């Protein structure tokens, strides 16, 4: 089950709608400091349903909506969509037979939130249950954020037990 495509619009520094089309093999994102690379990782976490703003370097969830620059005003909406290849049918339930599944999340500055699967409005729990038993999620070892290696290096033995507990 691969990510075929990510669409980011109004999320953090991606004021303009930006599409990442993924192919086979290893993908590498490069660019200068502060250009938005880690924001792409945040977008994926957020798209998967991350509820804790601090896991996205923010203090409130509103922080993920493009807040403007010196020359551009803030936007009123953050949106991330991810298109998954479901050739193996790993995304189960009613979607098991579909070759592709798209999840989309929106956050309005008013605080209103939307989740959609293949264009259908759903609740957050339907997004998270979609990924049950696939190994996909915002916790665990599939997403190693900038600085996480350092935290693991400096962890005390008692803190390190947590790494095993999470995997157990």
């Amino acid at each position, binding site marked *: 089950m691969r990510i075929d495509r990510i669409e980011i619009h109004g999320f953090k*520094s991606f004021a303009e709608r930006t599409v990442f089309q993924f192919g086979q093999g*290893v993908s*590498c*994102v*490069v660019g200068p400091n502060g250009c938005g690379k880690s924001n792409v990782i945040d977008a994926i976490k957020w798209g998967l349903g991350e509820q804790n703003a601090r896991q996205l370097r923010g203090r409130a969830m509103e922080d993920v909506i493009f807040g403007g620059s*010196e020359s551009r005003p803030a936007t009123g909406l953050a949106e991330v969509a991810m298109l998954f290849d479901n050739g193996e049918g790993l995304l189960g339930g009613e979607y098991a037979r579909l070759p592709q599944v798209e999840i989309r999340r929106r956050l309005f500055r008013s605080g209103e939130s939307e989740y959609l699967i293949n264009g259908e409005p759903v609740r957050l729990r339907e997004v998270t249950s979609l990924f049950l038993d696939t190994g996909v999620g915002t916790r665990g070892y599939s997403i190693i954020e900038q600085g996480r290696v350092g935290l693991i290096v400096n962890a005390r033995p008692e803190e390190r037990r947590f790494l095993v507990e999470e995997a157990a």
Partner: protein
Amino acid sequence: TRERFRETFDAINERFQVLYPRLVGGGRGFLRLTDENDLLETGIDLIVQPPGKRLQNMTLMSGGEKAMAAIALIFAIFLVKPSPFCLLDEVDAPLDEANAVRFNEMVREMSGHTQFLVITHNKSTMEVADTLYGVTMEEPGVSRLVSVRLEGGTAPVGPGGSEVD
């Protein structure tokens, strides 16, 4: 539960003992419970021996050596609890060229079963990528995708990030 912790710990330890020497080009490494008799509270020690050096606790090791041990541990846990994709944000930052090369070889090997998305400033990591996405901020504060280099060529990218023919 104690059972599950013990099983998971053993599985991760087993993987780590294979991955660590492969990642650092020799030596050995293993995990050790600080208290075998208290599986609910025990901590976990990381004991490694870089090639040719002596077995030691992590504290005296160098920045790059510690990072390699942590990466081997992360990959060991990942292989015990796999996911279809793996996102790595600048994990190769403290690595010298030799270590970065071995790290990238391991990523390539694992990419047979796993979709990797790697953020990096490291030239040798960029070289093993099949697709390279360049992000910039020509207009300060606004990110754009400006190029996608697939094996063998660079495709310029139009507004909205879609490829231009």
